[in-house]
């Protein structure tokens, strides 16, 4: 049981890193991205390819994985920046799938669907961090969670973090306040991708093999759920969100009923959690409380109301 719990905590850590990255993109800057699986994949494959084919040290591949993913983040960010909301979500989702499909089809580099096996176990000071023994890896992953948590928290509370948040609150106003919104948005994408790339690197070293079907769009959805369920923009909350989603995803195994209940049960419960959560606590478990602004001020702008009415009349609703 302990060993199983450790595994869950390791995956919680990996997902927490992904969610921290997503939080910069979605939680702080307000861009609805569904591409985290793609950045995750790039990180994992960078580590897999560099360690297996070129014998590069695992530790060196972590920042490289992050940088490659960040480059992809810029590539995704630039053309899609003009898109908003759901459009951005679909476009980034598409990019995530494209990344996976490129990996799947680039056989000479990635071995396509066969995946890459035999990734060496990382060593530190002559000691091997054996993923099968878990404790070492658990420490490694959570050290990274802590590092990213501290870095990103600090970042959010800086001038730049405020600029990102301003973009989320009102992009046009931020733009008028002298914030180069385009640059900051690309930058947020790159930071989020970098973090996800590092998570990918760790994941590759943990599973010691990578296959493209690990990085499906469901991973991106899960990561987004962690951010939203935890509380958007709140770094500790998204780590918490990662834990909750992991527990929710593994609860039948944790309760020892995985073999007795129908396998679909878990997914149905998960779906229910999502729906109920959105209805009763859309701001997330630790999110901020939002107040309905329209009710507070109660004033509709006269001119725009007139214009809006006119538009409707033009359609001819009025009998």
């Amino acid at each position, binding site marked *: *049981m*302990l*060993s*199983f*719990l450790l*595994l*869950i905590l390791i*995956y919680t850590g990996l997902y927490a890193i992904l969610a921290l990255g997503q939080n910069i993109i979605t939680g702080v800057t307000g861009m609805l991205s569904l591409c985290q699986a793609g950045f995750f994949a790039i990180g994992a494959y960078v580590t897999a390819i560099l360690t297996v084919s070129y014998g590069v040290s695992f530790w060196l591949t972590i920042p490289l994985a992050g940088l490659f993913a960040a480059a992809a983040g810029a590539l995704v960010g630039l053309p899609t920046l003009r898109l908003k909301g759901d459009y951005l979500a679909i476009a980034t989702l598409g990019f995530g799938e494209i990344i996976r*499909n490129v990996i*799947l*089809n680039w*056989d000479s580099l990635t071995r*396509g*669907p*066969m*995946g890459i*096996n035999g990734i060496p176990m990382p060593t530190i000071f002559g000691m091997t961090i054996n993923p*099968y023994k878990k404790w070492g890896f658990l420490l490694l992953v959570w050290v990274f969670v802590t590092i990213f948590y501290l870095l990103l928290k600090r970042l959010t509370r800086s001038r730049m973090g405020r600029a990102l948040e301003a973009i989320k609150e009102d992009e046009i106003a931020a733009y008028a306040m002298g914030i180069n919104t385009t640059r900051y948005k690309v930058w947020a994408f790159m930071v989020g991708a970098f973090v996800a790339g590092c998570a990918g690197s760790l994941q590759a070293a943990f*599973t*010691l*093999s990578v*296959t493209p*079907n*690990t990085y*499906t769009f469901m991973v991106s959805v899960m990561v987004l759920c962690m951010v939203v369920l935890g509380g958007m923009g709140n770094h*500790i*909350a998204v780590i*918490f969100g990662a*834990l909750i989603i992991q*527990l929710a995803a*593994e609860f039948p*195994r*944790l309760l*020892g009923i*995985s*073999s007795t209940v129908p*396998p*679909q049960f*878990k*997914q149905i419960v998960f779906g229910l959690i999502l729906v109920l959560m959105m209805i009763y606590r859309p701001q997330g478990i*630790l999110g901020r409380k939002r107040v309905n602004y329209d009710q507070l001020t109660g004033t509709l702008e006269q001119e725009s109301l007139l214009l809006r009415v006119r538009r409707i009349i033009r359609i001819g609703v009025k009998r």
Partner: protein
Amino acid sequence: MKRRFALLLILVVAAGLLFVGCQKEDAAETAEKAASIKIGFIGPMTGDYANYGTLMSQAVRLAVDERNAAGGVKGINVEVVVEDSEGTVEKGQAAIEKLASVDKVTGMVGAVFSGVSIAIAPRAQAEQIVMISPSSTHADLPGIGSYIFRTVPSDALQAKVAGAYFAEELGIKRLAVLYVKNDYSQGLYEEVSKSFTAHGGEIVAVETALQGDKDFRTQLTTIKGENPEAIYIPNYVAEMAQILGQAASLDMDVQFLSADGFSNPEIFDLAEDDTNGVIYTGPVDVDVTPGSAGFVADYAAKWGVEPDSFSKNSYDGANIIMDAIEKTYSGTGAIDRAAVRDAVAATENYAGVSGDVSFASNGDLIAVQGIFQVVDQKPVQIGVYTVDGEDLVKLK
């Protein structure tokens, strides 16, 4: 706010630990009783490929139920623990971890996909769990450890037989391939194209598709333009049914060739008359082995669907594990895992429902390959082959 959160987090962790503690006690209790021997199954039970996991897990459950009805293993009930891998490495790892550390299974059947099997095999090896995969055909799998076996022929054998048979026996010179970008299809494509060209054939067109694609008309139209003598489609049932149906709708009259994925009877429900004439490599005809007809009937009676060949492999895998436990169990409540493993490795000419099962020294199945042709929506075995080096050897 912050403090409240910290408190909450501590509470959750504490609850988690408490929970673990309780679980451990439970585990201890059951161990004392030693009322059952556990074997596991790992496969995709939900998601796009849930049907494969479902069919195979049912075979394992059937094998265990039959054994228990017959008095169990030396009077002890066997319990089967089915874990969902969702077809992903991550969930596969969680599954093996749970089987190893919570259920403490002695052996397991699975995983289904090669990618997952390769990722979890080192864990099974380390925990001394005999792992028999009914469907992972990747060449690397048996080499991972001494506890890793499989009851499905490797890509290598099937592909060598197929390539040589297509070129020599069928006399095909110009072959087109349409495969799906997953490890199973691509593995077969790569190996078959090697052996087919080695035997003098030419691959004139290679088209691919993505897992989950439903429309293959573009690829088929392009292939049609190359005018091949035959099209090799080493895919899963869902894709092959689509391909055959759409080829018919494109009015393509060409020989289709396939692999063991075709031995799933579901193909006849889905593609019906379009299956006629297809030639494929598969496990030797079930009807020639004793007990297999009974298995198909029992399976269909219990689950309401027909088993595929992977289910037969799963059934045999489960029985081989249980036989090995039966042979080595001393009645003390403790199971000597090394002995069980040795007993499994010693399996020779086991008359299973999937044919005669013998393991090579590396745990791979020593297999012969059946060749089938579909006549009136029924597979007819037209030969049994193996290879000697690269040369095709006809056994029947």
